[in-house]
């Protein structure tokens, strides 16, 4: 388990993600940010718990719901916001947006608009590391429960298990793929058991508990780094809001279910724990909040003050 003095850091990161997502929601509700967006509010503990098991030069492969991963990997908020605003100063010069945000300098191989497509890419990065680059880097690959039944999941896990690749597969199981409950999509309930088909350990973690996520993922990362191959870690979590911009979830889930999960808010529960254990005071929390708000405001200002790409940029960077 992470030493206690790092718990504050975990809390801080989760809160930062939450506040950034809230700001983004505000911005797209005002139509200042366009396009397809998926917020990870409710799932912050997975991103932060998992990523804090990584070294700086470990690779990350993210998903369409990737803001949290990106922030936990150390994203500059200004460049991230600029990307969402479609500005030239964004991480992808405005060409990627939320679903394709990436930064190779941060060892971040991109969000992905296609369900499950991160898995083969992660396997490939891990293969390159193991066979060609000969470093002790690890690749972390996030995917949602929706990706459990797509062919790429099977092919990638089989290859990783077969070749003992240094990759950690993290399933963020928030029970839904858009409207589809995981039990209506996946022939089995115990997802982690699927790891057995690929000769790798599979564990389930409480995705609302940042420390538990971190503990489980840490083991998996160690295994990978030591050459023992891949693991599957299933984190049970919940998205508090709608799938994308559409806030309505009423056709496929109940208010009661939502309420139950919201009571387990990974940030509030952890905050109370930190305060209770005297690791943090209410005052500290407020300072942290204030810092976060300020940094987000700065990021938004930077983004909105930034220029759009010019027409000449359209056909640039297609080829190297």
């Amino acid at each position, binding site marked *: 388990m992470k030493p206690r003095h790092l718990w504050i850091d975990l809390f801080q990161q989760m809160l930062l993600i939450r506040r950034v997502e809230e700001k983004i929601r505000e911005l797209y509700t005002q139509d200042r940010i366009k396009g*397809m967006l998926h917020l990870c509010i409710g799932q912050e503990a997975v991103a932060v718990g998992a990523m804090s098991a990584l070294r700086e030069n470990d690779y990350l492969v993210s998903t369409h719901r990737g803001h949290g991963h990106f922030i936990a990997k150390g994203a500059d908020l200004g460049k991230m916001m600029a990307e969402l605003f479609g500005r030239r100063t964004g991480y992808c010069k405005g*060409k990627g947006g939320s679903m394709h945000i990436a930064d190779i300098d941060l060892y971040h191989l991109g969000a992905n608009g296609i369900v499950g497509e991160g898995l083969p890419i992660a396997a490939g990065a891990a293969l390159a590391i193991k066979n060609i680059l000969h470093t002790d880097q690890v690749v972390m690959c996030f995917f949602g429960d*929706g990706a459990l039944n797509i*062919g790429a999941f099977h092919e990638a896990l089989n290859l990783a298990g077969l070749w003992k690749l240094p990759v950690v597969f993290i399933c963020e199981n928030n029970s839904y793929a858009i409207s*589809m409950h995981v039990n209506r999509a996946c022939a089995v309930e115990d997802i982690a058991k699927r790891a057995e088909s690929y000769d790798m350990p599979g564990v389930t973690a409480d995705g609302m508990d940042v420390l538990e996520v971190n503990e489980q993922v840490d083991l998996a990362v160690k295994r990978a780094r030591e050459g023992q191959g891949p693991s599957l870690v299933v984190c049970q979590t919940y998205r508090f809001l709608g799938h994308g911009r559409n806030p309505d979830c009423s056709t496929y889930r109940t208010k009661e279910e939502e309420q139950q999960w919201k009571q387990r808010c990974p940030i509030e529960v952890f905050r109370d724990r930190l305060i209770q254990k005297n690791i943090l005071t209410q005052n500290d929390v407020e300072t942290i909040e204030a810092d976060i708000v300020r940094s987000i405001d700065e990021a938004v200002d930077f983004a909105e003050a930034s220029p759009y790409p010019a027409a000449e940029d*359209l*056909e640039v960077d297609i080829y190297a």
Partner: protein
Amino acid sequence: MREITYRDALKEAMQEEMRRDPSVFTMGEDIAVYGGVYSVTKGLLEEFGDERVLDTPISEAVIAGAGTGAAAVGTRPVIEIMYVDFMTFCMDQIVNQAAKMRYMFGGKIKVPLVVRTQGGAGTYCAAQHSESLEAWFTHVPGLKVVMPATPYDAKGLLKSSIRDDNPVIFIEHNLLYNQKGPVPEEEYLVPLGLADIKREGEDITIITYSSMVSVSLAAAEELATAGIRAEVIDLRTLYPLDIETILQSVRKTGRVVICEPDCKTGGVGGEIVSQITEYAFDYLDAPPIRVAGRDTPIPYSPALESIAVPDKNELTKAVYRLFGRKVES
């Protein structure tokens, strides 16, 4: 005549055909309980039950492959692939199985599969949710390719596609779902393989389809004020191509612009230009040209996306140029 949306027109087509023929069923991601991410299938689950309206896992390959298998044993599946971009996951099932099965089996089987999907740029969804891949499918013997532009055509063509005994790739456009247009209450069909002259004109032929039809009509309107009478042909079906209607128009006008939403190189326009050149070369007063999407992935930034795909200005400029008129670039 009453006006309904493209979305509702499609839904009516589904309802009418499912009522008419119990062997029609539909499956896809989020189409039942949720009613489809574009709400086209809303209400079908309630009316037809969960044996005929199925939510599938995110498994495009097996959706298409199972559709093919179900069609092969005598049912009429309508599968939904949420974005045409995701057809990349079921190319084998569509191209190597569904499209070829009848031929490979010596004509002894029918594969009445409809693949409903939608695509196109214009919604700030970036490179993986904005593709126009129709050209690929026109290159696959055994498939038909349909792309309706209006509520009327959407309904009539979807009904015909469902009744067709061949695999049909039916590509809707996300910018059109909310568009309203006249749709009769009475039943009707629009046959596959027939283009529609959406506006008559003598001076130039604009050949177009899907989201570019309204762009072309707007351009024609503007051109008219400049004294250029444009004929606008909405292909509706890309394969089989209604080359007769095209040639008739071209023989009359002698000038052609293809206005297409997909990226230019390797797009559907190339094929059309080639056929025109092959069959009506002597009627051409000027080279047929293409006003098409740029050869680039679709960028996210609204500032760039809007110039990645043709608009009215680009089209009218191209036409003016063809008539030797000066235009400020």
